[in-house]
């Protein structure tokens, strides 16, 4: 099984440094949440881990090898990437769109084989989009579109799934279902890295959180260790209210903390 290891990653846009000295190890079987305020570099870091962008410094290894050593096609089978925003340029039929996830497994003019069909069926089932399969992408709602795109990523059947804000457009029921699905995916031995804005769901579903703020990793570890009042005030500038249900703690952003961003806690 593959692990992703990023060492000393730096991201610069011209003279501006977005990230500096970021180290990260991702192993299969784990669900890792990337959190942080807008513009803290979550998406950029995820794209670097998926080899969609090169860092200005540092390196990423996949099972000890560089992306070039692994090869583009093999890497595409190892890492499924779910982009932010849900862009779909042509109103293709839902099932054909999900089948795009099988492209890394197919030769140029080869049709879908039994393994492809099986992976597509499982992905549609898991993402709860079976009933939408006959529609076109022009005939689905924003939430349905996100679930279809999630099914597309699941159809790759990759050991690693990197998802950028997969629940941003979803109603509460489907937010819970997708988070549950991602956790089940991790329990089945895959690695899941997910960029999230919902701290409550991040706390509840992720095994480990990385809080990006102020040009690097502010803190990393189990949710309880990361989501302290001090860290949240420092990273987001908010105060939270906390509670407990069925023995599971939860938190809710409540008001601006009055602590300006960047000031010590």
């Amino acid at each position, binding site marked *: 099984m593959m692990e992703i290891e990023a060492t000393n990653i730096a991201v610069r846009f011209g003279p501006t440094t977005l990230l500096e000295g970021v180290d990260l190890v991702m192993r299969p079987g784990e669900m890792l949440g990337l959190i942080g305020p807008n513009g803290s570099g979550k998406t950029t870091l995820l794209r670097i881990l998926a080899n969609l962008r090169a860092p200005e410094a540092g390196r990423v290894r996949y099972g000890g090898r560089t992306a070039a050593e692994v090869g583009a096609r093999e890497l*595409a089978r190892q890492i*499924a*990437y779910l*982009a932010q925003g849900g862009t779909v340029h042509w109103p293709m039929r839902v099932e*054909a769109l999900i089948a795009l996830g099988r*492209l*890394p497994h*197919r030769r140029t003019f080869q049709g879908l084989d039994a393994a492809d069909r099986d992976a597509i069926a499982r992905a549609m089932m898991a993402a709860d989009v*079976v009933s939408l399969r*006959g529609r076109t992408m022009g005939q689905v709602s924003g939430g349905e579109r996100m679930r279809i795109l999630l099914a597309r990523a699941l159809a790759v059947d990759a050991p690693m799934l990197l998802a950028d804000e997969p629940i941003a457009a979803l109603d509460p029921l489907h937010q819970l279902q997708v988070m549950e699905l991602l956790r089940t995916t991790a329990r089945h031995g895959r690695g899941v890295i997910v960029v999230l804005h919902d701290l409550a769901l991040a706390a509840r579903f992720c095994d480990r959180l990385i809080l990006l703020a102020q040009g690097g990793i502010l803190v990393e570890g189990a949710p309880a260790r990361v989501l302290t009042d001090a860290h949240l005030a420092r990273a987001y500038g908010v105060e939270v209210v906390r509670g407990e249900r069925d023995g599971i703690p939860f938190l809710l952003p409540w008001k601006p903390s009055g602590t300006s961003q960047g000031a010590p806690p």
Partner: protein
Amino acid sequence: MTQAAPVETPRPWLIPPYGLLVVGLSVLVVVLLGTSLAIGYVSLDLTQAIRDVLSGQSTLAALVLIELRVPRALLGGFVGFSLGISGAALQGLMRNPLAEPGIIGISGAAAFGAVSVFYFGLAGALLLALPLGGIAGAAAATFLLYALSGRGAGTMTLILAGVAINSFAGALTSLALNLSPNPYAVTEIVFWLLGSLADRSLPYVWLVLPLMALGWALLIGSGPALDGLTLGEDTAKSLGFDLGRLRFQLIAGAALAVGSAVAVTGAIGFVGLVVPHLLRPLVAHRPGRLLFVSGLGGAALTLAADIAVRALPIRPELKLGVVTAIIGAPFLFSLIYRLREEP
């Protein structure tokens, strides 16, 4: 997560199976090729002409068939196929239904290449001078496109470079008209620019067919990557496609196919824009599948327009480019009208 029972949804009635669509369009193209052979200014007993050709007799009928009808029909099919498939490929690359083969500047430059041949009076000197000039223009534009935009260029840079090349080629064409040595040359150039399949001989076909075929192969091979691009550049890349290579493959393919087409026929507009747009719903908007059927559709439309040119009782013969534009522009109006409705 909720487990929904697998439901077989019926295929919407208006989307035919892909194989049937390919066969249907192929049959249409073959019928139009036959019609194109049968129609012309001298009445021709087609079966007798074919019999003469096969038995090696050089009768007038055999001569008309081989020297006039066959090259005209074949070029109509090949040029139309090139325009249709290139339009579909570029619309897929740009992810924009208003892209067309002219957008990257290749056709404008090919036209200028051929116009220079007229200008320098070389058209009569060598049988293949015109298409060779056109191909040289297309090749020069392709290199310029690369020099301007670079291998890693984004789609926007590519479009801008294409617009710049198009304007420059247009300006040079106007300059050639402006400085033209005599009115006869001006008429020659203007008529050539209108686009026509009339009076092209078989050597034209043999010159451009290998170039076009190579272009078609490059374009068809890009199908899976174009499918992947439906989900945006990041996702396409995450599916293992090299976007720099894809752009190179598509530009080289379109340059070979369209450059050769313009080099032999002059500018034939709207085929590359309208055909992919009309056929896209029939392949359920799959960019990869649109390529080959757009080629067939382009061949059918071009052949039909060229048959219409000869069948219409208008003399002098209407230029093919004029007819395709007159048929094509109203489609563009309706396309824009419908796009307006979208947010």
